[in-house]
C-alpha cells in the first residue's frame, strides 16, 4: 500500500510537487493522470526511493521512503518512464543481473517466468539493443515484476506498444492489481478508465481531482455532446433546425463540416435530432456522441481554457 501526505519537492526554486496527499490500498490500481511536467515522475521517483522529498512523508509497503529506503526498494517494482536498460546485455542476462541484485532465489527460473509473462521468452538471448521500443518496454515491465513486489509503480507502462500489446499489458497489470498495489501514470483517459479503480489528476504539482473515472466524467461533463454530418455542406438552416429542437443547448459548426451540439446528461435528444434533420431534407451520414477527452477534463479542472469563460 501507499500512503502519502504533505509531499513536496523543490528543484531549486521550482516547486515540482506541492503538498500531495493520497493513498492506495492493496488490490487497488490507481491511475496518475496529468500533463507533462505535472509532477507524476517526480512523485514516482520519491515513492521508489530514488530521491528524497523536500518535505512531507510517504509510506510505501509499510516503510518510510526516507528512513527505510532500502526496505521500501526491496518491496517496490518500478518501471521508469525512460525504460533504462543495458543495451549491450541480452534480455536474459539483464534480468538475471537485476534479479541477483535483489537476491532472488532460483533466479534463472524466475527470469524465464517473467519473460514468458511479457511474451518475450523467444527473445531471451537477443541483445536488448536490437529490440524494438515495445519490446524494451516489456523488458522493463518484466524487470519491475521480477521480485513479486508488493507495490508496483509504473511510469507510462503502455507507451510505445502496439495496440495488441497494449491490451496484453493492461491485462497483465489488471491481473497483478488484484493482489498488489499498482500506481501507474498515463496520458490516456481510456487507459485509466480501462484498468484503474481510481484516478488522481495532478496538475502543476497539485492533485486537482481524485475519484473513479466514471464519477469524474459524470461530475465534470454535466452536458453530453454529439456530432453529426450530412451530405454536402452544413448550412445555417441545418444549424437553425437543430437549435430549434427541445433540449439542445448549443450548436456549433466545425471546420471539417461536422455540426456539434450539446444536451443535458440523461436527456438524450439524438433520436429527435436525427428525425428532424432527415425531415428537413438532409442526408444524415453520421451521428455519434463525443466523450470528454482527458485534455478537456484538465482544462476544465485547471480552469485555464477559453471554453471555461
Amino acid at each position: 500500500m501507499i500512503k502519502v501526505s504533505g509531499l513536496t519537492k523543490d528543484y531549486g526554486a521550482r516547486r515540482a510537487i506541492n503538498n500531495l496527499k493520497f493513498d492506495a490500498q492493496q488490490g487497488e490500481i490507481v491511475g496518475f493522470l496529468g500533463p507533462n511536467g505535472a509532477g507524476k515522475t517526480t512523485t514516482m521517483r520519491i515513492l521508489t526511493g530514488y530521491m528524497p522529498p523536500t518535505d512531507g512523508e510517504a509510506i510505501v509497503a509499510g516503510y518510510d521512503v526516507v528512513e527505510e529506503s532500502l526496505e521500501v526498494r526491496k518491496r517496490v517494482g518500478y518501471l521508469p518512464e525512460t525504460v533504462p536498460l543495458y543495451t549491450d546485455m541480452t534480455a536474459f542476462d539483464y534480468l538475471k543481473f537485476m534479479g541477483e541484485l535483489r537476491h532472488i532465489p532460483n533466479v534463472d527460473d524466475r527470469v524465464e517466468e517473467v519473460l514468458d509473462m511479457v511474451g518475450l521468452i523467444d527473445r531471451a538471448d537477443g541483445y536488448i539493443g536490437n529490440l524494438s521500443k515495445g519490446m524494451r518496454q516489456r523488458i522493463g515491465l518484466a524487470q519491475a515484476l521480477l521480485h513479486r513486489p508488493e507495490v508496483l509503480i509504473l511510469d507510462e507502462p503502455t507507451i510505445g506498444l502496439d495496440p495488441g500489446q497494449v491490451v496484453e499489458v493492461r491485462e497483465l497489470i489488471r491481473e497483478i492489481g488484484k493482489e498488489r498495489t499498482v500506481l501507474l501514470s498515463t496520458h490516456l483517459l481510456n487507459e485509466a478508465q480501462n484498468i484503474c479503480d481510481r484516478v488522481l489528476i495532478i496538475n502543476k504539482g497539485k492533485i486537482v481531482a481524485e475519484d473513479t473515472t466514471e464519477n469524474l466524467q459524470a461530475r465534470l461533463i454535466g452536458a453530453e455532446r454529439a456530432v453529426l454530418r450530412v451530405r454536402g455542406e452544413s448550412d445555417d438552416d441545418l444549424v437553425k433546425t437543430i437549435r430549434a429542437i427541445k433540449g439542445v443547448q448549443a450548436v456549433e459548426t466545425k471546420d471539417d463540416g461536422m455540426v456539434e451540439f450539446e444536451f443535458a446528461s440523461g436527456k438524450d435528444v439524438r433520436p429527435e435530432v436525427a428525425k428532424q434533420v432527415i425531415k428537413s431534407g438532409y442526408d444524415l451520414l453520421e451521428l455519434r456522441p463525443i466523450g470528454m477527452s482527458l485534455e478537456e477534463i484538465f482544462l476544465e479542472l485547471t480552469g485555464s481554457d477559453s471554453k471555461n469563460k
Partner: protein
Amino acid sequence: MRTIWTIAKREYDNYFNSPLAYVVAFSIVLPVGIYFSLIMYVSAQQSMMGGPPPDSTPINWLFVFLMIFLSPALTMRLLSDEARMGTLELLLTAPVRDFELVAGKFLGAFLFVLTIALFTLIFPIIINNFVTPGIDWKVIIASYIGLVLVCGALLALGTGISAIFTNQFAAFFVTFGLFFFLWFMVNLPANYLQQGGDVYNYLSLSQHFSSMNRGTIALGDIVYYISLIALGLFAGTTAIEIRRWR
C-alpha cells in the same frame, strides 16, 4: 557484500565486451613485453662480462607508469555512463546501497586490472629460470603488493570521479589530471623547501611506489594507498548521494 559482488561481476564481464578495455590491456602488455625483452637482452650481454643478473622490478614500474595514463579510460564511464543512460535510476531504486554500487564498480575495474597484472607474472618466472640460484622473490612480492595497491588507489579515485560527472570524457580528463598531479607534481615543493618537504613527498604516488618496488614494505606506504582507496570510494558514494538530492 553479495550486491557488491554482483555489480563487480557484471562490470568485469563488461570489460571483455568492450574494445576500449582491450586497447588499454594491449597498451599495457605490449610496452611491458618489449621492455622485458630489452632487459633480457641487455643483461644477457652484461652477464658475459660479469654484470648483474636481470631484474624484473622495472617492469612493474612501467606497468604503474602506464596506468597513470590508461586507467582513467577504464574508470571514466563506470558511473558517468549509468547517469547518462538513466540506468542509475534502475540501480538506485533497487535495494542497493550507494556505497555498494560504487564499491562494486571499483571492484570490477580492479579485478580487470589484476587480470592484466597476472599476465606480467610470467616475466619474473622466466627470469627466475635464467638466474642461479633464482631471483629474490621477496622483492618481487613487495613489488607486486605495491603494484596492486597503486592500481587500487588509481581505480578507486577514478571511480569516485566518474560518479561526479555525466560525461565520461570530463571524468577522463579530471581523473588523468589528478593522477598526473599526484604522480609528477605534488612532491616538487619538497625540492625547494628547507623543512616540511616530507609532507609533499608523502602525498606523492610515485615516491611510495618506488620504495615498495625496491622491496621494502613500510606501513606508511600501505596506509597511504588504503587511504586513497577509501577517499575514492567515499567521494563516489557522496557524489551519488548528492545526485539523489538534486
